[in-house]
């Protein structure tokens, strides 16, 4: 039988798996990354369709800080992976907004803008707001053994206006919360810093730039990568992951196995024939996310700025009395969502050749999962229209006919697409509601990294891979 032994096997070639792989390969470990799909990037990937290149997942890279700002996650990540800042070619956002029915807050990569907006629109909350910001700034959000605390509870000690509370939670939840209505405070802090104290940026050519840098680092450090190579099972022996069985039946062995595919998804590999409805058998297996999304993308033959859509990079919108971050009751919940206009980053004298308009809304996996193909396509069409209409209420008005005549192409992902490409149960983008910060599992040499370890955003995902590789393998604390 074909049989190969590695120092470490990493399951998944997403941001976290690639970052873990670079660390280990750089320090001379024999590493193999196994990826079920033919494209790397995981949740944040890219594809070509009808001759056009699309990004999926990533709206913007969060955690952006200007060159020279040190001690933040972006700087740590670049150092740990030996990447020069210029390689990511990041261009900062113009501005973003939190747009609720009767109130708006503008923010940019300069925190003073949001700070002034809050003080001007919620004068009675200004002191509490500043106290909250102080707590966030000093909180140790990367501790691997912090006790979980409710973010609603901590924020509620400082901010009493429900509208301001909802406006703060809306972007923070949309960009990373796996939990309905609340978040663990450490997760809130990570996202608050990533979005508001740091900021948004994007390479002109999108997420593929970042993935290519990671792939090249990994390759040149001597790492091995097998694509279209899924893991079917992990075989346990004496409390260890003894063997990794691939989809084609080949078995590999390794001193360490790092899985980026999610906590329940990883445990399921250890139990043959496991499906999510069997989760009653084991509490760890009930730690499965419920929140999924749809995203629409529209390609136009002109720049959005021509319609007065040239200022906003990201808009987080909501029109209900209270912001409801829950699994959609219907197929999609278009009451709130996120608009991304990738044209509106400061690319200098370069521009994207076409106009792009993306809208993300909460969706319900169960109501998409088992539709017959014809119905699935019809529902996609219907919700595409509903989501884009809902979102456009928060942008300067443009005639339907004007947009239709400029439209070149559209595409859309649903919870079903997410399940297909990430393997996450329920198409849960942000994974399990309860994160496993130290990455430990029931097996002594099997660890988690990525979404379910709980450092959020793509910079967070890469830091997760780095931290777990350092902690469990390079420092040997596993």
């Amino acid at each position, binding site marked *: 039988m074909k049989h190969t032994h590695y120092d470490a096997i990493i399951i998944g070639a997403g941001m976290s798996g690639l970052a873990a792989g670079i660390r280990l390969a750089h*320090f001379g470990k024999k590493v193999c990354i196994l990826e079920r799909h033919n494209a790397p990037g995981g949740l944040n990937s890219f594809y070509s369709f009808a001759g056009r290149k699309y990004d999926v997942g990533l709206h913007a890279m969060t955690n952006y800080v200007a060159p020279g700002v040190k001690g933040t996650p972006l*700087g740590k990540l670049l150092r740990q992976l030996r990447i020069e*800042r210029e390689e990511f070619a990041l261009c900062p956002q113009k501005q973003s907004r939190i747009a609720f029915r009767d109130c708006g807050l503008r923010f940019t990569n300069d925190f003073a803008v949001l700070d002034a907006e809050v003080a001007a629109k919620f004068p009675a909350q200004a002191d509490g707001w500043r106290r909250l910001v102080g707590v966030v700034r000093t909180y140790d959000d990367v501790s691997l053994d912090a006790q979980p605390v409710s973010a609603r509870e901590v924020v509620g000690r400082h901010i009493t206006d429900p509208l301001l509370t909802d406006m703060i939670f809306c972007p923070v939840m949309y960009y990373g919360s796996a939990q309905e209505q609340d978040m663990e405070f450490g997760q809130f802090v990570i996202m608050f810093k990533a979005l508001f104290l740091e900021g948004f940026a994007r390479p002109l050519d999108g997420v593929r730039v970042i993935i290519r840098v990671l792939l090249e680092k990994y390759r040149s450090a001597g790492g091995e990568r097998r694509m279209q190579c899924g893991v079917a099972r992990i075989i346990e022996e004496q409390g260890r992951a003894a063997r990794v069985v691939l989809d084609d039946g080949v078995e590999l062995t390794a001193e360490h196995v790092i899985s980026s595919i999610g906590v329940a998804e990883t445990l399921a590999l250890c139990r043959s024939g496991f499906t999510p409805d069997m989760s009653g058998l084991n509490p760890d297996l009930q730690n499965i996310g419920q929140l999924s999304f749809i995203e629409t993308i529209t390609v136009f033959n002109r720049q959005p700025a021509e319609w007065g859509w040239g200022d906003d990079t990201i808009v987080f919108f909501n029109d209900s009395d209270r912001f409801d971050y829950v699994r959609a009751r219907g197929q999609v919940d278009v009451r709130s969502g996120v608009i991304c206009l990738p044209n509106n980053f400061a690319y200098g004298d370069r521009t994207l050749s076409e106009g792009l308009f993306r809208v993300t809304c909460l969706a319900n996996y169960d109501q998409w999962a088992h539709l017959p193909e014809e119905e699935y396509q019809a529902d996609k069409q219907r919700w595409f229209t509903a989501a884009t209409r809902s979102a456009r209420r928060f942008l300067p008005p443009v005639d339907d006919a004007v947009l239709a005549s400029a439209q070149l192409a559209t595409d859309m992902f649903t919870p079903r697409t997410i399940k297909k490409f990430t393997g996450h149960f329920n198409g849960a983008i942000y994974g399990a509601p309860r994160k496993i910060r130290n990455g430990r599992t029931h097996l002594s040499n099997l660890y988690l990294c990525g979404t379910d370890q709980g450092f959020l955003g793509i910079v967070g995902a890469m830091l997760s891979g780095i931290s777990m590789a*350092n902690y469990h393998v390079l*420092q040997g604390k596993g």
Partner: protein
Amino acid sequence: MTKDDCKKLVIDIISDIAPDEDLSAIKPEIRLRDQLQLDSMDFLDIVMELRKRHGIEVPETDYGQLASLESCAEYLTPKFPQKS
């Protein structure tokens, strides 16, 4: 290997780990942490690069010996094979 050679090797490592730091005016007696923005992840990397490049092991109990460039040289120089 002289202490000055050793300092240079340590600076080479730091410049690869933290290319965004200005290393031209490091004062050897002052703690690296006090003149450069280096965190615990960076110090761990100095240790690991010493092992990777020069085969030198620094046990966790000795990490304190790497506080300044001077103390690095004091501690690390004898660990390099001496030319006769």
